[in-house]
């Protein structure tokens, strides 16, 4: 049985790596039918495939379109799995409130980042675009967020990003919530200047940065 489960999970990871949407969905259904626990399907099937694609993207061997499509396959597969996840069975990596800052209507980068974080096991609450600092602080408090992830594409909205970081840090949740920033308008220096806890260069790096932030909270 176990070797059969292993084979199914290996094939599922392979379908992810080959970016075969229908094969990946069929693989999830097959795994469920064979009695593989949903959590194992995510971690040892889909997650392995996603990790492979992400690492090759980080190494410059895969392209953005492939990373995006892999994230889409992951979401489609998770939709099949969702009813089969027992309450509490899926241990969340952390809870992230994500938004494009006030003044910025761009959502492509934010959507990709959110989708990557979801695929890595984070719970993601997406507040959308052009979100005020007050709304972000309020939502982070309401949802008990571990991380506030902010995206800004245009330099013109950098002041709003700064204001948002300050609002989070000065709020009552500022002591426990970590701020992760990304997007074209941000970089390591601006993150430091604004007082953000981390900067992610791209959506894939966002996962590792979010994990580092979670580790720092655990300490």
């Amino acid at each position, binding site marked *: 049985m176990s070797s059969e489960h292993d084979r199914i999970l290996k094939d599922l990871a392979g379908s992810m790596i080959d970016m075969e949407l229908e094969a990946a969905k069929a693989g999830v259904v097959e795994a469920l039918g064979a009695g593989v626990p949903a959590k194992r399907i995510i971690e040892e099937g889909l997650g392995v495939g996603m990790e492979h694609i992400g690492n090759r993207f980080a190494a410059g061997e895969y392209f*953005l*379109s492939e990373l*995006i*499509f892999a994230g889409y396959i992951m979401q489609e597969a998770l939709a099949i799995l969702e009813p089969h996840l027992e309450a509490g069975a899926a241990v969340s990596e952390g809870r992230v409130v994500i938004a494009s800052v006030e003044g910025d209507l*761009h959502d492509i980068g934010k959507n990709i980042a959110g989708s990557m974080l979801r695929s890595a096991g984070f719970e993601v609450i997406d507040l959308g675009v052009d979100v005020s600092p007050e709304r972000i602080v309020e939502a982070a408090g309401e949802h008990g967020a571990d991380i506030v992830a902010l995206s800004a594409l245009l330099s013109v909205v*950098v002041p709003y990003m700064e204001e948002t970081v300050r609002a989070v840090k000065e709020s009552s949740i500022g002591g426990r919530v970590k701020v992760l920033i990304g997007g074209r308008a941000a*970089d390591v220096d601006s993150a430091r200047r604004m007082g953000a806890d981390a900067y992610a260069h791209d959506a894939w790096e966002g996962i590792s940065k979010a994990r580092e932030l979670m580790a720092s909270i655990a300490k």
Partner: protein
Amino acid sequence: MMTHRERYMAAIHHEEPDRVPIYAGLDAKFKEMLTGRRHASSKSYIGGGVTVAKEAKMTDYEVLEWNQKLSNDAIRRLGTDAFIVSDYWLWPRGYEPRYLDEHTFVDWWGKTYRLLPKVGTNYWIDGIIKTEEDLDEFVPPDPDEINYDLVDFAVRDARDGDYPVIGAVHLAGMFPYLMMGGLDRFCINLYARPRFTGRVLDMVAEVQTEIAKNIIDRGVDIIAETDDIAGVDGPFWPPEIMRRHIWPPIKRLADHCHRRGVPYLKHTDGDIMPVLEEFIDFCGFDGLNPIEPQCMDMAEVKRRFGRRLYLRGNVDITWVIPYGAEEDVRRDVRRAIDQGAKGGGFVLSESNSFHPNCKFENILTYVDEAKRYGRYPCGKVEAEG
């Protein structure tokens, strides 16, 4: 002393002119500061953070010509060397944006924009072609129904001072992904619904190629094709997707430009280096811009491709121009000239555009240092091969 046009055209034909030609892509704010005149609100998205107005006292064309004149005069005042007229500003005759709400409208290519008054800019937010049925119902613009009077005006106005005119066009990549709801949805459709995506790409390329040909017929000196196909992490798509969908229309238009003796500049943000050699081999374009310093090394591009491409780049607009001190600006201008200028084949420009967060005095310093340091002989990096 050479005229602006003589200087610019000599440089892009790989000759050393009297000094490095300078390009400046200016936000409306700086055009207003340079000319003392207001940019007019337009009826549609025309880039550069220009306010969109549903009602205008001037006719549509008067607004466009007013803004084109403002743009040209700002270049004259700043002392840079080229005018630009963009297909963003060439509307189908009788065009009216379709408003979805007070601030949101759909343009003639099915791209949806929203004005955000608090930051004084308008943004693309979505597109209306989500399914093959949407595509079947969509009527693309007729290239012969576009009003090209603005190109005629720019070409005519450029004679005063003898400026070259760059015709900026979109072709393959950006319009399709904006019409389809964004780069993320476009990428998903590329793999999940390849036939649909291919149809959208073909439709846009066919119409935009004809628009570009009409712009060339009106007498522009250079075609700049401005679809972004890369980000800071590298090209958006793998080479097999590029070969199938993105590069063929670029090659067709570049071939047409060459038959007409018009140089073809390829603009893309991001890091195109991983596929650049094959891209040039495939398409045969003549110039590259903006060679973003955050992810590309202009010295390396000059060394490896400087004999095949003219370079237009790449003074940093992410930190140097918005936040840097005068000396930072002068240093970065000298760095760009050192990397690009030797032997010609180089136009100095900002690394994307002078956006509203840039410091005005730093833009003036950029021009001043370019004119001081960019006198030939200059440049340090030699093109090889």
